[in-house]
């Protein structure tokens, strides 16, 4: 009944995950750790201490050249021209319909050199799209899929900065949110950014794959006395959902516009034209027909990805992500619902395995870390 699966790709840290007893599962063609000590334990570790993630499966695409900025501006929604070298931003790679090819982080390495960190599930698609867009734009711009040149780990949690500070001379206190610096960590050349996908303070570290194991070991050792945890994709998902961060494939895809995803703030309307801008402008003018909202369950049930949201008993929307959060201990989620249901406090009905369960729309995010900087 089933054909033999293609061989799964392994990150440079694969042997470490197995040695730590991680439960492994395929994700986007990679053999990745889902959990080590348990999703709850790892999630709570990140919220209260520090956790370490291997996210080397993600993609890195570089654009460089005199026309790199202009080409990038034309293919993304946010304004990369605002970025100083050393600064990064969240953005969307858009289709002519104003929908998502991918969501991504744009790092400005230099005036004419950009690094895009993209979702693992979209690397090939993005590389083809960005290359074609750059060629169509024309001028002096080169596009390189540099994913094989980078490993990426994320150190996240209120204790992350103190742990990282023991291993680097980079001035972490001076590194603002969504800024990055090149330097050494544990004697290894890295790029350290104050970014993350957990809603906690923390850092993401890019470095050559050959150095990943040494960095991983050094971070775990440095964090041992504060009981650091290696964390897998399971906790990564529950953490990002608590922080209302979107996941491509759940909250958005090529059928969802940037406005429908509730991400109007990454559209730089006045930066000039970009792919899909006029469709988005038209949608902004007449209002969206549907939009992503955050919800909490009222009845004892968990609304999960794919469950129908009902309006007067009839299917009207769909849950895009949902879980019982290990930290807030509530059943929460995000859903794409008709415009009429988009208001905080709005009651929702979610169909949970044949029964109707009550929920309500709540403000984003579910969880906000205590102010630190």
């Amino acid at each position: 009944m089933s054909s033999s699966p293609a061989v799964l790709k392994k990150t440079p840290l694969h042997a470490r995950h197995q040695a730590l007893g991680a439960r492994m599962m395929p994700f986007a063609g990679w053999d990745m750790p889902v959990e080590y000590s348990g999703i709850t334990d790892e999630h709570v570790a990140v919220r209260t201490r520090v956790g370490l993630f291997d996210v080397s499966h993600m993609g890195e695409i570089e654009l460089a050249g005199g026309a790199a900025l202009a080409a990038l501006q034309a293919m993304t929604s946010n304004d990369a021209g605002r970025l100083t070298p050393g600064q990064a931003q969240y953005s969307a790679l858009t289709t002519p319909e104003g929908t998502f090819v991918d969501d991504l982080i744009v790092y400005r390495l230099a005036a004419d050199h950009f690094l895009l960190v993209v979702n693992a599930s979209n690397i090939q698609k993005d590389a083809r799209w960005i290359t074609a867009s750059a060629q169509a734009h024309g001028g002096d711009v080169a596009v390189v899929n540099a994913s094989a040149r980078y490993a990426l780990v994320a150190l996240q949690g209120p204790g992350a900065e103190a742990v990282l500070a023991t291993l680097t001379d980079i001035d972490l206190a001076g590194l603002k949110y969504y800024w990055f610096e090149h330097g050494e960590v544990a004697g290894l050349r890295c790029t350290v950014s104050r970014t993350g996908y957990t809603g906690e303070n923390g850092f993401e570290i890019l470095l050559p794959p050959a150095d990943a194991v040494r960095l991983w070991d050094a971070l775990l050792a440095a964090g041992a006395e504060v009981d650091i945890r290696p964390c897998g994709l399971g906790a990564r998902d529950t953490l990002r959902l608590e922080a209302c961060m979107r996941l491509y494939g759940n909250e958005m895809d090529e059928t969802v516009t940037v406005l429908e995803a509730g991400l109007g703030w990454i559209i730089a309307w006045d930066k000039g034209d970009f792919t899909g801008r006029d469709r988005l402008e038209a949608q902004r003018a007449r209002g969206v027909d549907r939009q992503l909202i955050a919800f909490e369950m009222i009845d004892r049930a968990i609304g999960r990805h794919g469950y129908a949201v009902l309006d007067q008993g009839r299917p009207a929307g769909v849950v895009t992500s949902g879980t019982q959060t290990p930290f807030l201990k509530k059943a929460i989620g995000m859903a794409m619902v008709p415009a009429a249901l988009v208001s905080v406090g709005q009651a929702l009905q979610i169909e949970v395995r044949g029964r109707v369960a009550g929920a309500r729309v709540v403000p984003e995010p579910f969880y906000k870390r205590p102010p630190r900087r």
Partner: protein
Amino acid sequence: MYPADRQYTRDHEWVRVGEAEAAVGITDFAQRQLGDVVFVELPEVGRRVKQGDVFGTIESVKAVSELFSPISGEVVAVNDDLGLHPDSINKTPHDTWIVRIRPDGPEADAALLDAAAYGDLVQ
């Protein structure tokens, strides 16, 4: 490894028959596969079940699993403690009962496994 005082199903439930009632839970293998249990949906007391019927669900952070009744009978008790402490299923799977059923009668042996056979199954 698996307690000999009870029988097992291929769906990883255990059933321990007492004088008047049988206690039902899930095995250590099942709880490890599931991960951290966050929610258990229990049947109503008085519900009649046949062997193999879905009598509830058990949810972990990531997944929902159905619970299949190992025997036919009437549900006489459900473990309400699981509302506040669903993780007891992870901590002590063989000591945490989920429902108690008054059996209709002795079950067909083919459907239930003894501890040794279950141990082989999950090896």
